[in-house]
């Protein structure tokens, strides 16, 4: 089994309906994502998952020098940022890609699949 990070990428700033065009769309996506989460748990792939606040709420801390330097984030300037993620435990990449496809459809976002080197 391999652990994978499935990260969802979306716009830097969200509107009143999050990343969605309308309240109805947002509610549909939330319901579908909830069902997908339940399925991950039922099938034994679930490790951990979460949604993040929009990227403009991030703060960068750099303590690689003499003293910590704190700056308003996010770390990289980009048009799209990670908006949420799942950590799953799957037998191989084919299974992880299938789950990512289901997750992408549920939350209506692009999903990056990346293997963990290890979990602490």
């Amino acid at each position, binding site marked *: 089994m391999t652990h*994978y990070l499935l990260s969802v990428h979306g716009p830097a700033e969200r509107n009143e309906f999050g990343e969605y065009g309308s309240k109805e769309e947002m509610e549909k996506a939330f319901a579908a994502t909830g069902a997908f989460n339940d399925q991950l748990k039922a099938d034994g792939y679930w490790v951990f998952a979460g949604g993040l606040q929009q990227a403009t709420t991030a703060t960068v801390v750099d303590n690689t020098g003499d003293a910590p330097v704190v700056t308003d984030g996010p770390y990289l300037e980009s048009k799209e940022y990670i908006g949420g993620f799942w950590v799953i435990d799957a*037998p191989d990449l*084919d299974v*992880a890609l299938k789950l990512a496809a289901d997750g992408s459809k549920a939350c209506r976002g692009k999903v990056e699949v990346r293997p963990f080197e290890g979990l602490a």
Partner: protein
Amino acid sequence: MTQDGTVDHGGSHHVAGRPSGGDGAAVERVFREEYGRLIASLVRRFGDIDLAEDAAGEALVVALEKWPSEGTPPNSGGWLTTTAANRAIDRIRREGQRDAKHQAALMTYDDTPHSPVGVVEDDRLRLLFTCCHPALAPEARIALTLRLLGGLTVAEIGQAFLVPETTMAQRITRAKKKIAAANVPYRVPSASDLPDRLGGVLTVLFLVFNEGYLASGDGSPVRSELTGEAIRLTRVLRLLLPSEPEVMGLLALMLLTEARRSARVRGGVLVPLDEQDRSGWDRSLISEGHAMVRSCLALNRPGRYQLLAAINAVHTSAVSASDTDWSQVVALYDQLVRLDPSPIVALNRAVAVAELDGPSVGLALVDRLPLEGYHPWHAVRADLLRRLGRSAEAKDAYAAAISSTANVAERAYLARKRGELV
């Protein structure tokens, strides 16, 4: 056999230009022929591509030491597999890589007899699907397939795709690292996924063949080691998936194209289909390809490669270019356009239409296509304009075609046609 003997229908294969005399060269030839099977069975056993390659390399060293003096063992493939497997086990013990996977490989050590059919062939199919996995970059899929299943060296693959050896080595290393880290499975996809995944494998094999048949670089215009390798791997695939009509279609397409290879370049100049000496075509490849096209028709599950094979069957059935059944060719392209509405298919269809309905009808179709960056589009336009007597425009089109291809034989052909215009 093709005329220069680079492809043996039995599947054995050696690279044109590689010395075949001398003991070391003979050992290397056997090694190359067995490489795909060897790596595939080692990857199955040990679940580690790098370990498989290292062990195979060590087995080659031993073979180079022993075979010239002791003679080549009767089952040389089996000998290489056993020797490499022992080396791999030694290495695991030596390096203490006793993680669960390696332990399992050691404990389930089985001496599956080395044979050309059965479970060992399945190993190669699994490895082919791993090499052509959609999570890998397309250029990495081709390189890995040629390296691990074809046994080509990194330098040879680099040369074939005009990439420095170090770049190609990085590309292959990165792909292998991804296979290991992301746990790309070593498995033939399930029946429901097979059609999609098989398409990716066929694309890789077809790209390898095409690069051999009309090399994109300015080196050798035709690279028979690549066409030969693509045919060899497609034959393996056909053996393993005999009921897939598109596999048979692709193999038939390759055979009917390969059959014309030796007539295709004369004196360093590309010879177009209608000017080729048809007595130079390989009749045994043609009859084999025709039989496959008939089998495909009987299955009645048409697909892209089967239709392209059928088109090539029409061409190779004609005694002379003027005997070509162009209405049949156009009908087949009409079917192909419905499956694949790409402008490149439409361009090829327009060439056939020009033969049937005249160059002005063909040109009207060609001019509509958004293919300014595709050198065959310029070459087709040039030819049609020439036939319509529009010499000045034809010259410009030939010039555009020449400047957009690096293939020396094709450039020579286009320059000759351009020079003939007044």
